[in-house]
């Protein structure tokens, strides 16, 4: 089943009045929409998304879409046109800027518009906000985080699309049911006081969890936002350091010495630890004690397993060695006597002790821990000194770029602090002494919450319900984990098949997708690689549905070098789904021109702009080759010649 975006129309909004028709060229492989900064790209994308689910607009948000002073109108609308299985439907968002209000209307059949939000039955149970967030993506904001170890973008995408989150809601419903039952069973007297105390504690824990989760979100955002700046700074600093050949040579020498010393230091630490474990191989009170113990065993003639074997053999005979018959009484005497001798298995343990002592106390194996200590200290000091020298050389090389160096150091520290928090602090195991005030570990806080809930269930007499909910929740959580793992494996396999087909040069494959996309043998891909693999990943997820969704991408080549841009153009030309992307004029070189060349122009190249004398003239001069839709303040020009020629007049703020 195919689901396509056919166009949209807007009037009276912050962006100019536009009318986009995307299906004029039915053979189009992709649609490129060029909109200068400040023309309403972000507004358009946001409203396109809101056209596909019933969004609750707050008055402040309605205000955001209002046209600026001289273009102000009391009312405005945004109408999108879609197609599912050949049937066309419309959704319209009507804004009343005077009342700061909004309403939806939609037309899903020939009956015309009705005043509510509706989707055709084919997709009404499938399309929701979470899915739409996957269909409309900003490569910079949504795709890059899918490749960062401290982010969970890929996992969230899988959860959203495969509706795994529904199970989370079911768990939440069970939790609410449990809490409701507990509240209905309110006791009186001292039990009530105890319940109050525990409920206060529970609230504190819940608040702390929310606080930590907020912090986690902020930290992830910070890491994402500073990633490029940090990487570029690091690259630039390396270039500066490497540019002075003499200093570079000196640094290389020092680094070589440092690596050698580090290796010696580490080997010695390992050897020293092995020595400590090999009790007896170094002089200590333990050596004396274990040697004395083994000597004493020798002195006592232990182990003496042959004696118990001897008794065992006698017990099996009919007659004793003296020739008399071995009756039960005599056997009893022998068995009692046997008890005073150690068993075969005990003898084996003792023999092993003696053998180990003998092995470890051999003269040739002797080690000296004091000597180890002083050598460890020497190596450690040498390492510190070499590290300092390397730093000094770096400082000398960076003397003219001290600000950049400081800034990058600062970023490194701040980023490490946050990474540590995400990797270690929130994942600490629960400890019995933990309180909500003493820890920020989400694992511990959740366990504390569980314990308090258990106490509350005991106090309110709802233990039975508590246990049942706990069992069901556990089953559902396990099911969620298993489903996620299986789906991740399948998606990884599918993605790699596509990568193999679509990457002409040096394909980079996906190793696994857990929280994020892990690439083979490399920490991160280049911006271009990540963008292309990100698109493949999203398309693979979207393909799991029986409906073929379009992929609508903002900033598809931002931050890519021209080779990456060209490869992305070639890559998009091979996509099977409807693909629509928004660009600005500086994205065109090596991208849309390359795409035009590869596909013989079989695509939609649309330019939309706020009218000005200069742009109007330009459009007029190209009118014979292009299809133009004009409103009082905006123009939509369909055609490659104008698309290619169009250049923004200056840099403005994108809204």
């Amino acid at each position: 089943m195919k689901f396509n975006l056919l166009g949209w129309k807007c009037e009276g909004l912050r962006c100019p009045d536009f009318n986009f028709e995307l299906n004029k060229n039915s053979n189009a492989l992709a649609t490129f929409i060029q909109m200068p900064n400040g023309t309403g790209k972000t507004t358009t994308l946001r409203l396109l998304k809101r056209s596909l689910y019933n969004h609750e607009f707050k008055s402040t948000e309605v205000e955001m879409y209002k046209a600026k002073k001289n273009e102000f109108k009391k009312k405005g609308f945004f109408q999108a046109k879609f197609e599912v299985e050949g049937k066309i439907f419309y959704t319209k968002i009507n804004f009343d800027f005077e009342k700061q209000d909004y309403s939806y209307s939609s037309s899903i059949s020939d009956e015309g518009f009705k005043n509510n939000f509706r989707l055709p039955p084919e997709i009404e149970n499938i399309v929701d906000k979470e899915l739409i967030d996957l269909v409309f993506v900003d490569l910079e904001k949504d795709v890059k985080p899918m490749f960062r170890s401290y982010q969970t973008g890929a996992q969230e995408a899988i959860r959203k699309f495969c509706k795994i989150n529904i199970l989370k809601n079911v768990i939440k419903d069970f939790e609410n049911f449990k809490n409701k039952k507990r509240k209905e069973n309110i006791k009186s007297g001292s039990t009530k006081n105890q319940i109050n105390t525990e409920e206060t504690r529970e609230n504190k824990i819940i608040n702390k969890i929310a606080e930590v989760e907020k912090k986690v979100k902020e930290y992830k955002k910070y890491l994402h936002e500073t990633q490029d700046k940090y990487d570029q700074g690091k690259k630039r600093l390396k270039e500066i350091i490497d540019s002075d050949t003499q200093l570079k040579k000196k640094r290389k020498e020092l680094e070589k010495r440092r690596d050698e010393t580090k290796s010696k230091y580490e080997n010695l630490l390992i050897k020293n630890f092995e020595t400590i474990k090999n009790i007896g191989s170094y002089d200590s009170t333990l050596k004396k004690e274990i040697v004395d113990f083994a000597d004493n065993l020798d002195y006592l003639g232990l182990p003496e397993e042959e004696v118990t074997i001897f008794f065992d053999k006698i017990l099996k005979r009919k007659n004793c060695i003296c020739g008399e018959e071995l009756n039960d009484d005599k056997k009893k005497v022998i068995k009692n006597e046997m008890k005073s001798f150690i068993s075969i298995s005990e003898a084996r343990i003792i023999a092993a002790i003696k053998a180990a002592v003998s092995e470890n106390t051999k003269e040739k194996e002797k080690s000296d821990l004091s000597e180890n200590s002083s050598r460890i200290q020497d190596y450690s000091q040498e390492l510190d000194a070499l590290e300092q020298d390397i730093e000094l050389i770096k400082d000398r090389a960076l003397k003219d770029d001290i600000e950049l160096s400081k800034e990058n150091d600062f970023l490194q520290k701040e980023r490490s602090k946050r990474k540590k928090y995400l990797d270690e602090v929130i994942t600490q195991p629960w400890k019995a002494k933990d309180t909500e005030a003493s820890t920020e570990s989400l694992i511990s806080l959740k366990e504390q919450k569980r314990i308090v809930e258990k106490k509350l269930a005991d106090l309110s007499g709802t233990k039975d319900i508590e246990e049942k909910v706990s069992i069901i929740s556990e089953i559902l959580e396990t099911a969620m984990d298993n489903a996620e793992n299986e789906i991740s494996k399948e998606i990884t396999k599918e993605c790699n098949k596509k990568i193999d087909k679509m990457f002409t040069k040096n394909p980079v494959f996906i190793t696994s997708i857990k929280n994020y996309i892990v690439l083979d043998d490399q920490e991160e891909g280049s911006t271009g690689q990540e963008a292309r693999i990100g698109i493949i990943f999203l398309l693979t997820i979207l393909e799991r549905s029986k409906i073929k969704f379009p992929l609508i991408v903002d900033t598809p080549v931002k931050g890519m070098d021209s080779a990456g841009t060209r490869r992305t153009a070639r890559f998009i030309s091979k996509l099977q789904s409807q693909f629509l992307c928004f660009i600005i004029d500086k994205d065109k070189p090596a991208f849309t021109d390359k795409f035009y060349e590869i596909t013989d122009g079989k695509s939609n190249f649309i330019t939309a702009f706020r009218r000005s004398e200069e742009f109007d003239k330009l459009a007029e001069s190209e009118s014979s080759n292009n299809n133009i839709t004009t409103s009082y303040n905006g123009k939509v020009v369909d055609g490659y010649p104008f698309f290619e020629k169009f250049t923004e007049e200056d840099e403005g703020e994108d809204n």
Partner: protein
Amino acid sequence: MSFRLVDRKKIDADGKFLSCKDFFKNIRVDVDNSSPIKYDMDIFMLCLILGLNQGKKEDYEKYKFLTSFSPKYIDTYTKIKPLITGLLLSKIMKLKNIDKNEKDKVKKNLQEVLDDNDPINLKPKYIDLMHEYYLGGYCILLKQFNNKAPNEVSIFFDKYNKLVSN
């Protein structure tokens, strides 16, 4: 029975007792990549060897332990298992005032302590005793480092080596 690390003191009057995992966290290989300390068993053995060396043990009942990290000696420790067993047997003989020349009493002690069916080769009571020496060693380390987790592996082993080779 199995190996466990101490988490806290049941009555920690001055609140200074540090969980064993926290004490070692900065000098484990996952934080300091030069460190040879990798497993919980490494931590346990460092403390146990020190406790046995100094003949110091702590009351097992006064401490709370984390859940078991292993029911047996991990592969890299099978070689030293007999040495630890031997040292514990020697300590037990001293604790029970057994005359080392009295063969019957020595043998009786061996029978009482050893258990070939247990992977640690000790009866439960004596596995507890092993943990008491481990606790003893850990308390010595805590004292040596003023109840603060060491940050440098070289400094840790410098102090440790001095303690065990004395």
